[in-house]
């Protein structure tokens, strides 16, 4: 019988800013593929990754409307990761730092993202076999 592991990832980057966000999502996907339960603690700018009011835009320079442009939105990537977790029988537990949310006014999140505090980050790390912090510069 294989052991089910829990991993925690701590994210700091705001959406649409850094390759670190893409790499972080690739890591989450890989962990879920392995059937791991995954915790994410998002703080500082990363709390906007799950903001429900993100909207894709057109690209006038290339003559594409919003549908054709199909601008990638991090809220959709998170929703897709949550669906993937469900398919794999794994948990994706996503917590945003509440203070960081209030500072930025991004309290309206997609479903299944909850508000927490740095104490949640500590608890997640305690419950996990390993924790990876991906900070900004």
């Amino acid at each position, binding site marked *: 019988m294989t052991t089910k*592991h829990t*991993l925690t990832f701590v994210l700091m980057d705001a959406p649409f800013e850094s*390759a*670190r966000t893409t*790499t972080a999502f*690739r*890591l989450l996907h*890989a*962990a879920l*593929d*392995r059937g*791991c339960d995954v915790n994410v603690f998002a703080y500082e700018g990363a709390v906007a990754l799950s903001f429900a009011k993100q909207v894709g835009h057109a690209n006038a320079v290339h003559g594409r409307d919003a549908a054709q442009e199909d601008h990638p939105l991090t809220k959709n990537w998170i929703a897709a990761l949550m669906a993937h977790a469900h398919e794999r029988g794994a948990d994706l537990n996503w917590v945003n730092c509440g203070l960081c949310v209030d500072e930025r006014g991004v309290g309206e999140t997609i479903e299944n993202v909850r508000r927490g505090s740095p104490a949640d980050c500590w608890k997640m790390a305690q419950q996990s*076999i*390993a*924790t*990876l*912090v*991906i*900070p900004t510069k």
Partner: protein
Amino acid sequence: MPGYLLIESRDPFESAGAARTYELAIQLRAAGHDVALFLVQNGVLAVRSGARRAELDKVIRTQIEVLADDFSLRERGISSAGMIGGVRAAPIDSIVERMTSGWNALWH
């Protein structure tokens, strides 16, 4: 004793911090730990065969396992033929694999 997986995401030609990561890897190894270095994003630019890379060569000579993210390599047009010896292209799952084995993972 759990090992250390050092993840380097910075271009070594832009960030002096990359060399510090390499140095940390060598010191952890000297202290008797299992160590691996995973290069990702612009961190993979160091593995091009034509690049100046004295610091990374020291890591390789210390027989630390050096892995380069296959996706980052493809993005930057670096083929396996264009890579230096002592480095292996690897999927991002390699990080997850080490973490589930209890290794300490540090990102820079």
